[in-house]
């Protein structure tokens, strides 16, 4: 059984977001890039499954649509424990474009389990996993919070209103995973970091594909209102402000 984990290369979650070019482009100057946290959790779960089912899982591959700079992020995934990496050489801005590129590679190699994070924390498109399933005509399950391999059967849990759904799926399938899929992302160990250098990282040229969306512009959220501090003994003042200024009482 082969597992593929789709990883996005995203700005660190603490990055101060700035835009350039009339607010049409994200300013990547000085930005530290990381594996999209949901994708990283997907990879963590894939590794846990491989460790628990060493004979059943042949390999874990990570794939990314990105430019050369994304290779550091792919290497990190290899350091964490993925066996090999694939980079599709293109600037990933449109969800359909990304899904199309991934599908073209996946068609050539049969993966049994394909995992995508539910969304990426840069553009928050939350659509690549679903599009990929459609393009490949694979089963897909969204909002997966638990994935296990039990007697060669894949068991998933997904969050539904008021509870959880327990389902089994046939391979190949696409699991669109969310929080809960793994407890914490792994920190690569020193040996893994050294081994990552020699693990295969294949670069594939992008195929022609449409972009269905284009960024017209970005805007910043409204700044947070200033915080007013009231001394604990001054309850009257607190009530007065909540009543007359915040108008919530």
């Amino acid at each position, binding site marked *: 059984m082969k597992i593929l984990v789709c990883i996005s290369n995203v700005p660190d979650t603490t990055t101060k977001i700035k835009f350039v070019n009339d607010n049409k482009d994200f300013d990547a100057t000085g930005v530290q890039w990381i594996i999209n946290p949901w994708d990283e959790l997907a990879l963590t779960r894939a590794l846990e499954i491989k460790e628990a089912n060493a004979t059943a899982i042949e390999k874990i591959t990570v794939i990314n649509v990105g430019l050369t700079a994304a290779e*550091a992020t792919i*290497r*990190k995934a290899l*350091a964490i424990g993925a066996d090999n990496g694939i980079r599709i050489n293109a600037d990933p801005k449109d969800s359909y474009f990304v899904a199309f590129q991934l599908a073209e590679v996946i068609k050539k190699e049969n993966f049994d389990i394909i995992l995508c994070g539910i969304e990426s924390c840069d553009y928050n498109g939350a659509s690549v996993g679903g599009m990929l399933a459609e393009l490949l005509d694979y089963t897909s399950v969204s909002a997966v919070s638990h994935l296990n391999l039990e007697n060669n059967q894949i068991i998933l849990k997904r969050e539904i209103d008021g509870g959880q759904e327990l389902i089994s799926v046939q391979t190949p399938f696409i699991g669109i995973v969310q929080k809960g899929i793994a407890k*914490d992302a792994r*920190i*690569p*160990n*020193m*040996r*893994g*970091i*050294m081994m*990552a*250098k020699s693990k295969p990282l294949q670069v594939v040229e992008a195929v022609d594909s449409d972009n269905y969306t284009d960024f017209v512009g970005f805007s910043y959220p409204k700044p947070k209102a200033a915080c007013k501090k009231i001394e604990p003994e001054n309850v009257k003042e607190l009530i007065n402000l909540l009543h007359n200024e915040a108008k919530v009482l």
Partner: protein
Amino acid sequence: MNFEFTEEHKMIQQAAKDFAERELLPDVIERDEKQEFAAEHVKKLAELGLIGMMTDPKYGGGGMDTISYVLAMEEISKIDSSVAVLLSVCNSLVIWGIETYGTEEQKEKYLKPLASGKKIGAFLLSEPEAGSDATSQRTIAEDKGDYYLVNGTKNWITNANSASTYVLIAQTHPDKKHKGINALIVDKNSQGITLGPHENKMGMRSSDTHSVMFNDVKVPKENRIGEDGFGFPFAMKTLDGGRIGIASQALGIAQGAFERAVKYSKERKAFGTEISNHQSVAFKLAEMAVKIENARNLCLKAAWLKDQHLPYGIASAMAKQYAADIAMEVTTEAVQIHGGYGYVKEYHVERLMREAKLTQIYEGTSEVQKIVISRSILKD
């Protein structure tokens, strides 16, 4: 000249940072307060491969360079120097010493479990009356034919309780003075070894520091490192590398305090504006930044020389003296910038200030480093 780190360096730095923030930060104040050894954290540190990170992979190590070590030490020390000192003693002193000068049998038996982090090591040099003057060893390792009989007391021993393997410096031929000193690998469970109480220190309080008493302890002859009388050069060579570890620790302490001071100065308001807008604070930050940058360059230079197999003893002494002294200055200023909040434990900077002090004292005081540096200038 290339000032850029490799992808591996950046990954190691990030891994150490993530580990420190995720694992060490949540209980660092409590452990310091209670003088509690970070046993569980150290296990994870070993799993991460930071213990033995520079050792040849054939002995179970990570095979990394000294630059990586500086980066990892800085990140861990930004959060918790009690853990960082364990890392430094294991990597720079015990593991490096056995790997560089030990026999294959010693490496098989002692280095492998140390380099994989399964066992912890301690380096026993200081004595009640032999600190900076390491030639005045009073602990005796009497030659009894096929074993040494050890008697004496060692002081201020980091990892004394948590370690399984000791590297002991002791005198075998007092008449030969420092040329009669030997380095011995000693199993901590050997009969006749007792520990003094945990030292109630000013800083690095969760580091496991004790005195160690030897009373007729038998150490097999095959546990001697190098030829008879090699103990003093062994200790000096080992400490050259140890200084890179402690210099990087001091750098991390300074950087940790600096980052907290920057953050606080941008949040705290006084006289109608953030205090970072007051030149008195902004200039302090500028001065701190320059000192830290200098210390970092000295640490990396010493590490680079070591990796190139070039002489690094003077560079490591410079790094240790400067980084330790500026760590004291920077942490003191960080407390000053925090004002009253800097004086309480919650804001970490008072702890960093207490930790900084030790870097000026152990593994060669700042004064001893100046002796080493000045002698190199004045020789010939």
